[in-house]
Structure formats: structure tokens, C-alpha cells
């Protein structure tokens, strides 16, 4: 037996922890790209903002997209509900709300992450300290994940938290690819210039996949392969396909548990079938951007259907 509000709290707790981690990785990528782009750095930071889904919020602040301002906005700004610090605040508040559903280790890992990052992000981060701070964010979120996987019972509580993780992650990966989709299109793939190599590496790095790409594909960066890796690969833990395999699995456990077959499970299954049975050529035929726009919309809808079916509100 689980309260709807608790399921909601678990779902959003995980989403926001995932979001904090993704944000750190995006900032990391942005910083690397900016280093190589010189005068065009502002453009890079703008694309980081749109990958983060924070373009409008940033524009509302009226600031220019300089590295310093964007980094501050994405890491610390309380006006940005998706900044690392806002995300951790929200995650911790949700964790406090569902405290009785969490193991002591899980709660303490979240609380400690919050305390330590609150200290690190109390003031604007100096450029020289940025790598250290980003590492700390990734480490803290990894510790939370470790405590969670290591101690939580595999029951519905676990399932709802997993749904949050994978809905958020799928959204994040889809956005990253969508913002940079033009460098993956076949029409420009012939270039192979050093600039494009940087772009491709940056995309892979933003999902921590620049090493694993080489284990799965040939050493050279080939745009279609990169798209395949991030969208359709079954083994890559941040690919859309991987996310949907997990979503279907956990929705399946819930359905089994409650002895029913809800609409949201069907929705997830359909999306998974689409991902599993398509080749990257099919995706390019539909149009990469169109494909991703549809995906982001369906993914959001899945989130809403989960909330409605399991009485989150």
C-alpha cells in the first residue's frame, strides 16, 4: 500500500536528482566547447541553455549569455527551478516528504549531498574551481544512487523512483540530441573537420559516453552512429531505448503488482517498440528533429498518464 502523494514524491525526488546530475554534465560540456570556440562561445552557451530547457528562464533574467552568468544560472540560481541547487532543494523536500518510504542510508545520502553542495554552491563558483565543483555534484548524486540501489527493497517504492529517473533521463538525452541535431545530419557529415569532431565529442561527453562509444562502434566518430548510440542502442544507459526498456519494465512490475493493465504501460510499450524496431536510417527518413519533437511530447505525456493513473494528486 502506497499513498499517491508518496508515489508522486518518489517520482519527483528521483527526477530532480537525475536533473541535478544532468545539469552538471551539461555545464561541463559547455565549458569544454566554449574553450575551443573563442568568439562564438556565447552561441555555445545558448545551446547549453536550450539543452537544459532553460532558455526562456534565462532570457527573463535579462543577462547576456556569458560563461560566468550561464554557469551561475545553471548551478546556483534560485530563480531557475532546474538549477543544480534548486533541483537538490526540491529533491530533498520530496525526500523529506516521503521519508518513511526511504531507507536511512538513502535519506542520509540525499541529506548529505544537499548539505555538502549547499556549502560548495554558497557563492558563485570561480572558473578555476568549476571542474572540482562539477565532480562533487556527480559524485554526490552517484552516492545517492549507490545508497538507493544498495538498500531499497525492490517493491513499488523502488518502481516509482525508477520511473522518475528514466522519464527525466529520456527527456534530457532527447533534448541534447535535438539541440545539436544539425551536426548529426548526413548532409554535413562529410566534413570531418576538427570542429565537428569537437561537437560530436561534446555531445557524447554530455551523456558521459565518449569512451563507451568506442567500445560499441568503430573508433571514428560517425554522425549516424552517434545518433544510433544515443537513441536506439540497448546497452547505452542514457539512450532513449534503454530508458524505455526500464520504464516498460517498472511499469510492468507495477501492473503485475496491482493486477491491471493501465494505459501508461501501453504507451510506454508502444514507444519502446518504435525505438526497438527502427533503424537509425528510419529515424533520419522521418527527420531527426521531427522524430525527437514527437518523442519529447510522448515522453511528457507518459509522465502525465503515470501521475493520473497512480493518483499522484
Amino acid at each position, binding site marked *: *500500500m*502506497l*499513498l*499517491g*502523494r508518496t*508515489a508522486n514524491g518518489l517520482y519527483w525526488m528521483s527526477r530532480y536528482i537525475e536533473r541535478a546530475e544532468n545539469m552538471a554534465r551539461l555545464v561541463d560540456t559547455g565549458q569544454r566547447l566554449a574553450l575551443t570556440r573563442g568568439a562564438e562561445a556565447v552561441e555555445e552557451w545558448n545551446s547549453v541553455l536550450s539543452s537544459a530547457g532553460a532558455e526562456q528562464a534565462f532570457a527573463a533574467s535579462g543577462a547576456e549569455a556569458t560563461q560566468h552568468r550561464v554557469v551561475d544560472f545553471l548551478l546556483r540560481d534560485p530563480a531557475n527551478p532546474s538549477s543544480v541547487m534548486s533541483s537538490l532543494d526540491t529533491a530533498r*523536500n520530496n525526500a*523529506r*516528504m516521503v*521519508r*518513511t518510504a526511504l531507507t*536511512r542510508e538513502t*535519506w*542520509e545520502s540525499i*541529506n*548529505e549531498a544537499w*548539505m555538502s553542495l549547499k556549502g560548495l554552491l554558497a557563492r558563485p563558483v570561480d572558473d578555476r574551481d568549476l571542474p572540482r565543483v562539477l565532480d562533487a555534484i556527480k559524485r554526490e548524486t552517484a552516492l545517492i544512487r549507490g545508497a538507493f540501489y544498495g538498500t531499497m527493497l525492490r517493491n*513499488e517504492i523502488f518502481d*516509482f523512483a525508477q520511473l522518475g529517473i528514466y522519464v527525466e533521463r529520456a527527456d534530457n538525452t532527447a533534448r541534447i540530441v535535438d539541440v545539436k541535431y544539425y551536426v548529426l545530419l548526413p548532409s554535413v557529415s562529410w566534413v570531418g573537420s576538427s570542429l565537428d569532431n569537437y561537437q560530436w565529442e561534446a555531445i557524447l561527453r554530455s551523456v558521459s559516453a565518449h569512451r563507451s562509444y568506442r567500445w560499441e562502434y568503430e573508433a571514428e566518430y560517425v554522425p549516424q552512429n552517434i545518433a544510433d548510440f544515443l537513441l536506439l542502442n540497448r546497452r547505452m544507459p542514457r539512450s532513449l531505448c534503454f530508458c524505455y526498456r526500464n520504464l516498460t519494465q517498472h511499469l510492468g512490475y507495477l501492473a503485475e503488482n*496491482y493486477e491491471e493493465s493501465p494505459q501508461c504501460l501501453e504507451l510506454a510499450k508502444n514507444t519502446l517498440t518504435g525505438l526497438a524496431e527502427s533503424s537509425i536510417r528510419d529515424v533520419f527518413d522521418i527527420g531527426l528533429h521531427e522524430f525527437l519533437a514527437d518523442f519529447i511530447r510522448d515522453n511528457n505525456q507518459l509522465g502525465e498518464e503515470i501521475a493520473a493513473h*497512480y*493518483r499522484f494528486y
Partner: protein
Amino acid sequence: MVAFDEMRPAESGLRQPYSAYDNWLSEQDPVRLTEKTADAERVFRRTGITFNVYGQAEAAERLIPFDIVPRIISGSEWRRLTQGIEQRVQALNAFLDDIYHRQEILRAGRIPRELIADNEAFLPEMIGVRPPAGVYTHIIGVDIVRTAEDEFFVLEDNARTPSGVSYMLENRETMMQLFPELFQRVKVLPVENYPQLLRQSLSAVKPQSVNGAPTVAVLTPGIYNSAYFEHAFLADQMGVELVEGQDLRVVDGHVAMRTTEGYKQIDVLYRRVDDAFLDPLTFNPDSALGVPGIMDVYRAGNITLANAPGTGIADDKAIYSYMPEIVEFYTGRRAILGNIPTWRCSEPDSLKYVLEHLSELVVKEVHGSGGYGMLVGPAASKKEREAFAAKLKTKPANYIAQPTLSLSTCPILTKKGLAPRHVDLRPFVLVSDRVRIVPGGLTRVALKEGSLVVNSSQGGGTKDTWVLDD
């Protein structure tokens, strides 16, 4: 006026209950003890045992300072205390039943009628309502102070929603982690079964219509409440759901919670939401913390609320001054635990006396709690006393006054070693089919030298409280 020190009273040296502890203490390295204090603080922070201080946004979550020197009570002292407490809580429940039914005590002229009729804590909605098993106040925190070897007084009866029991439990847990060897040398009665006792106690007063084990839940105002940690802690330890008003609604004449599989009936609700917010249809219509219609379910006998609405009339500070009469009226015996002499400022003679002796007295708001809105005469400046006197004259019925008691002291660990500080004690009492009291309680300690205010919101700390198995 020298305060009675519970470890080393001025006249007689070390007291017996502290002898085993003192032996252990003399073997300890002072530096290591200081480190242990820092360890304790880390444990509390990591666990998230914090409380929210109203009106201090920047320090939204604070720790209550914890002192590592235990407050020790002998088994025989404890037995005497519990007799007095049992008598008192029985009288409180009998008083509540009477006051919401025949009002015999008013008819007998033992308490002035207007004290009830004009009292905001009296809920007319409860007139004629008899809760399951006739229990009104299920969980009570009786604040007790000590002034000498054999002198204990009740300072306050917290009969609404007393808090602090989670600190009693976490303080013990922390002490056992920090000093495991100490617990092998000194036999201390356990407190850890409190959550199980609470669950048993709540289940024993389930509604009559419920067959089998009742579904119990804890109702919290939410994560921004100052005692949220405790609400979550108790729900967790009892293995019951922690619910908010938004999770509940009335379904088919019962209160039910929204789960991922639909609505599930609740039979016993340990509510940590104040009366005024419990039911927007009956009380404060703006309340989003309560459950619309829950009072109808309650009156129909389909849910147990712990504590019952309207128990505030029993722990009101104006009623407090009549507690000796109340205990005698319902139990037929003199109160075992004494009251502190109290001047009711509503009475002209008393008001006159209080105004003339403001520098010696403690003046409290009748409806206040948490140490807010109170004047400690001897510690206040002339200006503060004058300002308070003005308030007192405008609304005398709002205040009571008591002599400044010389509260007993216990040592705390300071940078310069052990030093005495004033303490009080809040044992937690469970009332249902019988009275259950865990051997221990929350010892609050004023950390500032000479201070008599032990409230956590006013810079007080806590100590582990030991009742010896002797």
C-alpha cells in the same frame, strides 16, 4: 538562592544515582569527550533531526543542541513520579469527559463557570461527544520540574499534541552509539519500545465498529511544520502511513487515504494538526491542512482521533491553577504531584500582587506555548518589565504568574569542563485501555549560565534521560 544540583548537591556531595556514571566519567579523557560532542552533532545533522524556528527564514532548520552528560533518575524516584503522573492523566481524562457532558465540577462550584464558557480552548462541537473507549487525551507530555531532593512540581500538562518524544529516542540512540561501554556499566531502563507502545495504545482505542487490526496513520501538517521530523519518525517507527490533509477525504462515512490503488479506510488517526485546522467545515474554514467532514465521521464514531479535539481545555494555563482541585474532585485523593502556586491575573487582588512583584515572578500568557510571550521577572530589564506591565494591565485575563522557581540543575559539558545548568523533564504518557509510561523522557536544559528558559526555541538544549534499573 542556590539551586539543587541533581549530581552534586551543595550539602551532600555526589548523589547515589550518579555514582556509577561518575566512576566512568573520572576515567575519561576530557579531549575525547569534547570530540564526542562534535560526533553527536554530526549524527544529528546527517539524520536530519532538525526543527524549524518560526520567524527565522535563514536558519529554517536548526539542530537542538545535545549535551552528552545524561540526566539520571533512580528507579525509586521514577516510581514515585509515575504514580503522580498516572493519577494526573486519569484526572485530566475524567475532567474532559465531565466538561463535555454533565459538567459536575462546575455544578459543584469547584471551578468558575466563566473559565470554561469564555475559554477559546473549550470546543462546543465536542459537547455530548464521547470518543472511542472514553479516552480524550491519549498522548500527554507532563512537564515536571524539581527544586529539591523530594520536591517535584508539574509545570504544565501538555494534553493537545505534545512533541519531543523523537528526541527522547534519538538522544538515547546517539548515546548508545557514542558510549556503548557506558551502557554495559550502568543499567539503564530502555525507552526504544515507545513506538510499539504507541501503536498498541492507539490500536486499543479503535472505533467499536472495527473488527481486527485497525489501520492507523499519523496526520502531519507537512514538511514545513516545526515538528515534521518527529511526525515522520513516529510513523516510520510504528510502521504506519504518514498522511497530510490532502491525502484524506471522507468516503462512505469513513476517513480514507488516497493510495496508488484507490481510497483505503483509516480507523485511528494520530493527528499532529491543531484543532482549529482539523476540519474546515467545522473549524477554521481556510484550513488546507485538515479533512472536510472528518468531525462528522468522528461524531458518528467511525474514527478515533488522538488526541480528541477540545483537549486544550485541560492544559490551558488558567485551568492549570485549578489542577489540585481537579485531581481531588475526580480521584478522591490529594494530588501526589504538586502544582506551582499560580496567580490568576484575572482576579484583581492577584493582579495587584503580580504588578507589585513583577521582578520576582514569571508571567506567562494563558494560551501561549514554547516560551513565547513570557516574562522572566528576575532576568528582565526595568524597561522590559514596564512594557510587560502595560500589556498586563490591558488584558489581565490573558496572563498568569508564578514564583521564579529555583529549578534543579544538572551538569553539562562546557569548554571549561562540567558546569551546572537548569533542567526540566517531560515524560511521555500514553492513555488508552491502560496507562503506559516509558521510563525516561525529554530533559530540556537551559544552556546559558543561570538561565531558566529551557525551550528549544529560546536556546535550550536536550539531554538523554536515564531511569536506572535499580
